């Protein structure tokens, strides 16, 4: 219940991008994004990472998540894990470089959290960032929304 009230109170922080069959996909204003559709929530020298609403919508129902080990290194733009949906495994790339300090074990039992709550309960890893300068390579919410619309217009 508390999570839902938190969700509602953040309503003003959302952008909506049009997705033909659904109407919209949510983009949160205070996150950073990369072009492979992952998000990073940066807090000090740490970041929480997941995949976006646009990404989960395009994947279909997630049935399996391959998580990295705590302590593993991640590199911006490179794969650190994978999700499976509709008989397709898709790599997940890290938007930041650093060391994994926590993984969302819940996803092993409930991989569908990625679909139902991509920005909240569906978070995937937490990283101690090694290179804050790289954050400049990421997109803000407006740029990411435009990027998604351009990508969807391709077909």
């Amino acid at each position, binding site marked *: 219940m508390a999570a839902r009230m938190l969700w509602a109170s953040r309503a003003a922080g959302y952008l909506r991008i049009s997705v033909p069959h659904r109407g919209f996909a949510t983009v949160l204003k205070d996150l950073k994004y990369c072009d492979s559709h992952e998000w990073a929530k940066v807090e000090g020298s740490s970041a929480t990472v997941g995949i976006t609403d646009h990404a989960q919508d*395009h994947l279909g129902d997630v049935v399996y998540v391959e998580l990295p080990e705590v302590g593993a290194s991640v590199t911006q733009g490179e794969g650190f894990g994978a999700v*499976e*949906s509709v008989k397709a*495994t898709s790599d997940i*790339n890290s938007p930041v470089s650093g060391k994994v300090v926590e993984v969302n074990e819940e996803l092993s039992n409930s991989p569908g959290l990625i679909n139902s709550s991509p920005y909240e309960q569906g978070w995937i890893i937490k990283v101690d960032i090694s290179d804050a300068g790289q954050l400049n390579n990421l997109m803000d919410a407006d740029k990411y929304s435009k990027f998604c619309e351009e990508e969807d217009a*391709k077909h």
Partner: protein
Amino acid sequence: MKSARIIEVCRMGVVNYMDALKLQERLIAARKSSKIPDTLLSLQHPPTYTLGKRRTDHNLLVPESDLGKMGAELYYTQRGGDITFHGPHQAILYPIISLRDIGLGARKYVEKLELTMIELASLYGVRACPGKSGETGVWVGDRKIGAIGVRISNGITSHGLAFNLNPDLNYFKHIVPCGIEDKEVTSLKREADMELPTEEVIEDQLISCFVTQFGYSSITWKDKKSLLCGDDGDTR
């Protein structure tokens, strides 16, 4: 206005599973660095069982040691999906394409692979349809005629689809195909009421259905030798 999209297609005949995997790895790297355009492999495998990333080997119903006696191999792969069988007289397509270039996600890509097989089946009067939710693949009633298992890495696809022309369906008895119990496997030979042309003809039709479904405007035919000899832009 959409620009012209090319696909390079290679008819490979029967290829050992490991050889095909290694070739795909090279093609993925070349496609990722744009050294080659979208590429499609059309082939068959010798008797081979494969598992996906989730390694669901509880769906193999015989000891692994028995497989050699049947003349079959077993591979663990990084593709999505459960356990399946590949063998002679089963048409396989492995598209190595950039989904980002065409703005497709996994779900839409897999739907188009399903439609490719559904269209091919319809050429022979067979009414096939996609699986119900969670059962990706192509079905004729309750019988599975086509399977899908895909890997997407940096937006580039590998593995793909397998469509049963007339494989020895007994091989499927040693597994719970795709992890779905109590459902049969079938083939175009079983379902079609008409006489079928040669497999080469049907495989070319499958390629054609794929090309149409994915909106390519031109095909370049590549021969097996030029693919296997490193003529894919790969510098050694």
